[in-house]
């Protein structure tokens, strides 16, 4: 009996509930993180309390916050002359808080030399970079602070600790230029053309969305002086041909327009694109990174190198409330270019030149994975670089076209075309693979369809040069051959001076042997029939 009771007691004592460990995350929110380290972040926590922003930072969300530590807040207070946080203007504190919060999670691995991908809650961009001071490199934010600890993941975002309070820009582009005496001539030009007001509207209050954010490539007085204009009057005399700079067609107005780019573009953004539109209608500036120098309008045109101007890194990337201000070390203006004829040998491109065993010696078939950069086909067919006599420079492209077994189109990037009106001639060798072969193509340039079609299987109706030109044909080789003909597909108005995309779209038929030799862009008022081209490439002018 006793044993029974002992066993019973043992059972009851042993029947414990096994504890279920419920797992929740013990990651803190941003507020929690700040409260975990009061010796570093008590001041910023106080600021959040004053502005009332600790509500949304303590709950679920995705934020990136650049948190200044206590030393940073102390030196900030000192610089503004206040002794306590409570004595500061609450609105100003709210602006500062909004300026260091971004509504996205941004890691330092996505930092570039320029701006972060999203606006801060204040409505201005933060820029990042890295600076090396006496052998130590730190990531910098807005050129105002260094990051002390990066990528601290908390449950509602990412915290980066910085050593200075980040303060937003207060001036507009116009204000910045006016307050800097080294831009006096440029500022006067802005005022007289009326563009000063365009640059003086903060982004938040601008109703014109296309001009909310602008980038100015300003020329300092020394740059303008170095170009030969001692005073503003000299500049105005040279450029303002109507005498009234407020007119949109006045050259001085265009000169200033040409220095203002749409959008907010820091130097890192400028070098990522090769051309940028300006306020001047249809005028672009070209940009390139040469070594470590940012160059504007440094181009090779028609075989001639045109030296550009450099944007000085140390005095550029100045954030304003409505954009960025850069300093150009030289003087530049809209280039007046007259249209020049471009006789484009399509079989001459850098990738084939890099294969000297093939270039002008033997055929090379491209595959879909290694097409040259300037040619795009959707597949399944590609193109073959081929050689043959009578073709100009002895080479041509053999492009299979026509669905469904072959690519339905091919895109090619033209050389630099100056804006103007051109007649476009497609120069090819006619070939009909079989009796029923057909290959009717529509040509479009930048999406604009040309007036006539061309067909690789159609031969020229050979008669006299004049009659042929009237029907839209010409010989282009020397000596002439009726199998090598050029078809006029129409007139195109090229609107901007840059490289454009030309597309062959096959409307009917399909064949492999479409032999394309050249494409001519000849300004419409120039001689269309000459020069002709020998097989070695020499041009033969009109006799």
């Amino acid at each position, binding site marked *: 009996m006793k044993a029974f009771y002992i066993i019973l007691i043992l059972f009851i004592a042993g029947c414990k509930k096994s504890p279920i460990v419920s797992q929740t995350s013990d990651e803190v929110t941003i507020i929690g993180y700040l409260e975990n380290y009061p010796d570093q972040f008590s001041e910023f926590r106080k600021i959040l309390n004053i502005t009332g922003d600790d509500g949304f930072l303590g709950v679920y969300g995705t934020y990136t916050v650049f948190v200044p530590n206590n030393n940073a807040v102390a030196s900030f207070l000192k610089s503004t002359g206040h002794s306590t946080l409570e004595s500061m203007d609450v609105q100003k504190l709210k602006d500062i808080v909004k300026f260091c919060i971004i509504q996205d999670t941004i890691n330092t*691995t996505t930092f570039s*030399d320029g701006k972060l991908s999203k606006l801060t809650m204040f409505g201005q961009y933060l820029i990042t970079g*890295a600076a*090396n001071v006496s052998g130590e490199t730190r990531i910098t934010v807005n050129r105002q602070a260094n990051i002390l600890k990066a990528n601290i993941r908390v449950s509602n975002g990412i915290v980066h600790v910085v050593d200075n309070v980040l303060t937003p820009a207060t001036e507009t582009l116009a204000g910045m230029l006016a307050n800097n005496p080294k831009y006096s001539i440029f500022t006067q030009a802005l005022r007289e053309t009326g563009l000063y007001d365009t640059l003086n509207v903060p982004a938040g209050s601008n109703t014109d969305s296309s001009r909310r954010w602008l980038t100015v490539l300003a020329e300092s007085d020394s740059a303008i002086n170095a170009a030969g204009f001692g005073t503003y009057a000299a500049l105005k005399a040279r450029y303002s041909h109507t005498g009234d700079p407020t007119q949109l067609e006045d050259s001085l107005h265009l000169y200033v327009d040409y220095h203002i780019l749409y959008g907010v573009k820091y130097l*890192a953004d400028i*070098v990522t694109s090769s051309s940028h539109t300006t306020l001047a209608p249809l005028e672009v500036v070209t940009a390139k*990174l040469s070594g470590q120098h940012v160059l504007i309008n440094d181009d090779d045109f028609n075989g001639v190198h045109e030296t550009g101007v450099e944007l000085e*890194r140390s005095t550029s990337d100045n954030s304003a409330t409505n954009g960025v201000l850069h300093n150009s070390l030289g003087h530049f203006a809209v280039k007046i270019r007259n249209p020049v004829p471009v006789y484009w040998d399509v079989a001459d491109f850098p990738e084939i030149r*890099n*294969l000297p065993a093939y270039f002008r010696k033997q055929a090379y078939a491209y595959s879909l994975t290694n097409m040259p950069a300037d040619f795009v086909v959707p597949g399944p067919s590609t193109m073959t670089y081929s050689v043959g006599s009578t073709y100009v420079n002895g080479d041509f492209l053999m492009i299979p076209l026509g669905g469904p077994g072959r690519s339905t189109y091919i895109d090619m990037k033209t050389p630099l075309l100056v804006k103007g009106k051109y007649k476009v001639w497609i120069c090819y060798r006619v070939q009909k693979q079989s009796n029923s072969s057909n290959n009717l193509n529509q040509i479009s340039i930048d999406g604009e369809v040309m007036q006539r079609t061309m067909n690789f299987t159609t031969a020229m109706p050979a008669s006299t040069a004049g009659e042929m030109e009237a029907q839209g044909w010409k010989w282009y080789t020397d000596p002439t051959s009726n199998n090598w003909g050029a078809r006029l597909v129409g007139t195109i108005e090229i609107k901007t001076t840059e490289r454009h995309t030309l597309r062959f779209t096959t409307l009917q038929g399909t064949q492999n042997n479409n032999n394309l030799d050249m494409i001519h862009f000849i300004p419409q008022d120039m001689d269309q029939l000459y020069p002709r081209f020998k097989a070695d490439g020499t041009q033969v002018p009109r006799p």
Partner: protein
Amino acid sequence: MKKYILIVALLLTSSCGKWLDVKPQDGIIRDNYWQNKEQLKAAVIGCYSSLLNNGLVSELFVWGELRADMVSSTLNTAVDEVNIMQANILATNSYTSWSYVYSTINYCNTVIDYAAKVMETDKTLTQAALDGYLAEAHGLRALMYFYLLRTFGEVPLQLKATDSDNSLDQLEKSTQDQVYAQIVADLTFAETHALETYGSTAQDKGRLTKYGIYALEADVYLWNEKYDDCIAVCDKVINSGRYGLMDGSVQSQWFNNVFYIGNSAESIFEFQFDQQQLNPFYSMFIVATNRFIGSSRVMDEVYGIDLTDATKKDIRGDGGSIRATDQMIWKFAGATGGTTSVARTAADSWAHWFVYRYSDILLLKAEALAWVERGQEALDLVTTIRTRAGAIDGTSESPDPGSAIDVSNYILNERTREFAFEGKRWYDILRHAKRNNYAHLEIMLDMVAMTAPGSMQQSIINKYKDVRSHYLPINQYELQADKKLVQNPYYQ
């Protein structure tokens, strides 16, 4: 009742003795191992087997090439890899893990700790043979620590085998000098006792012979600017007469012997991948979704193109290290070299990982000669290499033999051509840049200015100006596992 209890107790304790003694039934425990010299040899070969690990070799490639200028990313490159190429290395990056290297070090430590036991039980093991095996273990350990030194800078020195759950040490990092001293100590032991040959070509190239040790010593001495030691050790290899440059007059034959099959007369030490143990390079270089290709400057600037005479070409360029048409890294991807280009298939991807070749000895010696004012001899060695390779005139330079830096830069460029994609380019750049207390940091910064993406160029240049960024951070898991490790202060 008592009787029954007694009988049961007797039975339990006698027959079920095995019950309480927990030995693994399908493995050998240490008490039963280290009994004879065959087991010792198996353990040593096991150290070499641990090198044939895809994770380890991928890491060696990434560490040695990604931060330099020979490799480009593709659309399929992983985020961690892109971050390394853009100097955005965080402690969470998977390539900061050193576990594969320490695995091999542990195998070597195990051999070093327990090999001597064999002599007690196996009397046929001679002291010379035992020392030979120990030399291999020391040498391989030194090689692993040399990789760690060049990649991480300061690493913990684990010199004891981790052989039970109780022996998990919390080690601190050792300084670079301490790690270097340990490497030299291991190599000094190894060079005295290593064997000159193991009897077959595959073993001589796959295991560390005395000459493999010399080659590693040359690299190690040159790393810390001990030029005379480096020259002495290189001469020992050169004068042995066992190695030579393979003839390069027919590119396809040269490629086949040196890179496709491997273990040529030129090779000193290679990781011996084969059909049973494939390398990781098929998915990295060969498939359509490959992660790395050669950069465009490889054909344009490194090897050059002779525009006047198409028959003249550098055999190490198109059809050698790289395929010019699509920039595939041909050294590991190619089944044939020369003009007909056939890539390896997945089952065929067993290219060796080339650690030291004879041309490396010549160029290491040349670099040391340049800095002890024997510049003309250095240039002669470079000419030997170039003549074998058919290097074109466009890439030849004529530096003043009296100017050490000019000769040294020429040698650096020639090393780029000779050892393209072999995991040496970043280490070469770092060695040249840090010479004389970073007197020539611009060598690295100029390279970075060219390869960095335009929108990040200035940040990346400034990052490399901080010399602590030249080394990788310690992986966050390592920091959590070993509380005594302190992260590289650049990566705070």
